């Protein structure tokens, strides 16, 4: 917790700027579908055989048809891409939900990005009604040993851990996102 709660000396403070004057976040609104999604957005790895699908639900367990999901992950060796690669692996993806609240990505399973951390994918959720995007993570169901010692996952109570772990569903992995309610997904303060 110390790393999170204790302010560190920052260069800007030395220069006399006491606080970041950030531009506030605002909702993506309902009408972004003509602007932000693009055809290759859900294709994180063109040759990838891992399909991660999910549905976004609101607090009344209704699907959210106007959400935008963005993900970011390293390759199978745990390396994040910094430039276009011959195989088209991008690491980043964007997918709007459809009328039934569904989204899906074609990718590969990431390797651990750091020693001691379990493989995971970073997730950002934008939607109408979300004034400041939400951040969560996708962990993998076949990584019990690594998940058990992951520094983030191990801090989540057992019952809620399940909201961060994708589950096998036929040929795909399913990662549903519950914005609120009994199965509310764990979201992070980044």
């Amino acid at each position, binding site marked *: 917790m110390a790393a*999170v*709660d204790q302010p*560190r000396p*920052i260069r800007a403070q030395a220069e006399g700027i006491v606080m*970041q004057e950030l531009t506030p976040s*605002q909702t993506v609104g309902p009408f972004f579908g003509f602007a932000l999604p693009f055809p290759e957005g859900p294709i994180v790895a063109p040759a990838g055989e891992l399909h991660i699908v999910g549905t976004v639900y609101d607090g009344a367990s209704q699907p959210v048809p106007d959400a935008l999901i963005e993900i970011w992950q390293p390759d199978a060796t745990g390396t994040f891409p910094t430039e276009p690669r011959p195989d088209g692996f991008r690491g*980043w993806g964007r997918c709007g939900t459809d009328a039934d609240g569904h989204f899906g990505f074609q990718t590969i399973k990431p390797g651990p990005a750091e020693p001691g951390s379990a493989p995971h994918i*970073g997730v950002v959720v934008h939607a109408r009604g979300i004034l400041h995007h939400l951040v969560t993570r996708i962990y993998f169901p076949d990584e019990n040993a690594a998940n058990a010692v992951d520094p983030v996952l191990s801090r989540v109570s057992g019952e809620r851990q399940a909201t961060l772990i994708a589950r096998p569903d036929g040929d795909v992995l399913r990662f549903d996102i519950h*914005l609120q309610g009994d199965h509310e997904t764990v979201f992070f303060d980044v």
Partner: protein
Amino acid sequence: MTAALPPYRRDGMQAHPPRDHAAYRSTALRHPKQPLLPLPHSMTELTQPMLGTGAIGELDHDLTQQHPGEPIGERIIVTGRVLDGNRRPVRDTLVEIWQANAAGRYIQKEDQHPAPLDPHFTGVGRCLTDNDGRYRFVTIKPGAYPWKNHLNAWRPAHIHFSLFGTAFVTRLITQMYFPGDPLFPYDPIMQSVREESDRQRMVARFDMETTEPEWALGYQWDIVLRGPETTPPDPDEDH
């Protein structure tokens, strides 16, 4: 092995609106009720997504030239710098914008506001910031429009902005407003930001220097994303 990346600053984050803002009704069922779990910044948060959104086209920044004819409306130039919380320019970063047309209508089919569509206006633009962190768009001033949040609810004119910055944690989606709009006090989305001084940072400044004679009104709007806790010396910075 590259040098460890510095974590990002956590001060100033209260400028962002609370996710539970009852006056904006759509937040009611769409905000988490459990406290957010503090997440120390690791590689996933500190690396910069490689977007692969494709090359920027020559006319992507000019929303008035994306069709054979010119759109109806007040032609404007919107420009400014993308800075980090340490006031450093954010270079080569993608800026995406989208907006309603001059009549207050989005091209998206779900928008049923009975105002005319404009066959010469899509309302989507993008560009990369330059070495000074500057972006520039040419567009038309969007109209205000009604929405169903409450009786007689109207959104002040705004342009949506999407930015990425230098890391996964610097992501920002926001809206730029126009100075002096009488709808500000009535808009629960803008008013979701708690402090007036923070709200003012979402309002562009009319600028005669940016205004081009016989052509277009100019607006300046700087955007500030989170900055890292420590920064390496900047070779381009004057000392």
